[in-house]
């Protein structure tokens, strides 16, 4: 299994985000990434995002994740505010050992799971050693 991460983040936490027509703030969702023989799996916390509100794109070697969040708090009557609510945005560089045509994703309970399968050549193969 490759020790080198094939999924690297573009820029730091405060990376540039697309211009928002609503003038909203964008937040960086927290992610976990793990790798198996066959694929890379990315898990992103996107609370408040419905499956139809996830905009996941692969373009020019980048995986762009944009989760739209609808405002859900009333303007008045606030008693305590410990976190902000806003769209999520994060971009990753995807190495060419990922088969981009086969990237798939599912969303459940505010967690997005993205499967990035490796191209066949990048999957480790056991080589049989014959005794002479």
């Amino acid at each position: 299994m490759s020790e080198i991460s094939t999924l690297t983040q573009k820029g730091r936490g405060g990376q540039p985000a697309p211009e928002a027509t609503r003038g909203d703030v964008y937040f960086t969702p927290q992610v976990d990434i793990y790798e198996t023989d066959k694929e890379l799996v990315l898990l992103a916390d996107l609370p408040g995002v419905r499956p139809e509100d996830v905009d996941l794109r692969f373009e020019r070697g980048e995986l762009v994740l944009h989760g739209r969040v609808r405002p859900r708090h009333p303007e008045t009557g606030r008693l305590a505010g410990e976190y902000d609510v806003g769209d999520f945005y994060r971009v990753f560089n995807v190495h060419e050992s990922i088969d981009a045509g086969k990237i798939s994703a599912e969303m459940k309970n505010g967690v997005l799971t993205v499967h990035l399968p490796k191209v066949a050549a990048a999957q480790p193969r056991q080589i049989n050693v014959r005794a002479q």
Partner: protein
Amino acid sequence: MRATRWQPFNPIWNQLQQLQEDMNRVFERWSEDGGRLLGRSAYPPVNVWEDAENIYVEAELPGLSLNDLEIYVTGNQLTLKGERRQPVPEKAVWHRQERGFGTFSRTLTLPFDVDADKVDARFENGVLTVKLAKHESARPRKIAVKGE
């Protein structure tokens, strides 16, 4: 278990709290989460608001399974308790781990008593919203002013 108290009728306390939040925000702009959390307090962070009849408590708990969540209400206290379990994939190497896991328990002391029989809790898209009806004694009462 930690309890959070509000003093909504103390304007000076509110201002100090606001200053604290602003200072935290300055430092958190550079943090990994892009500054979403306003102040490092207990988990889960909550947003609370009210209207004439109810008080609403919202917490973000993505990936939580309903079996792992418990909610208790007594008098003027709300307790959120549960466990966020980390998936354990087979034969995997972790490259990045930013999400937190484990057990949590947080008790909030609300500014008024609530009616424990009328609590509505909903969990959608990883967001828990608890709607608590204010106790009769806590509802605003319009006072008739008698004139001369």
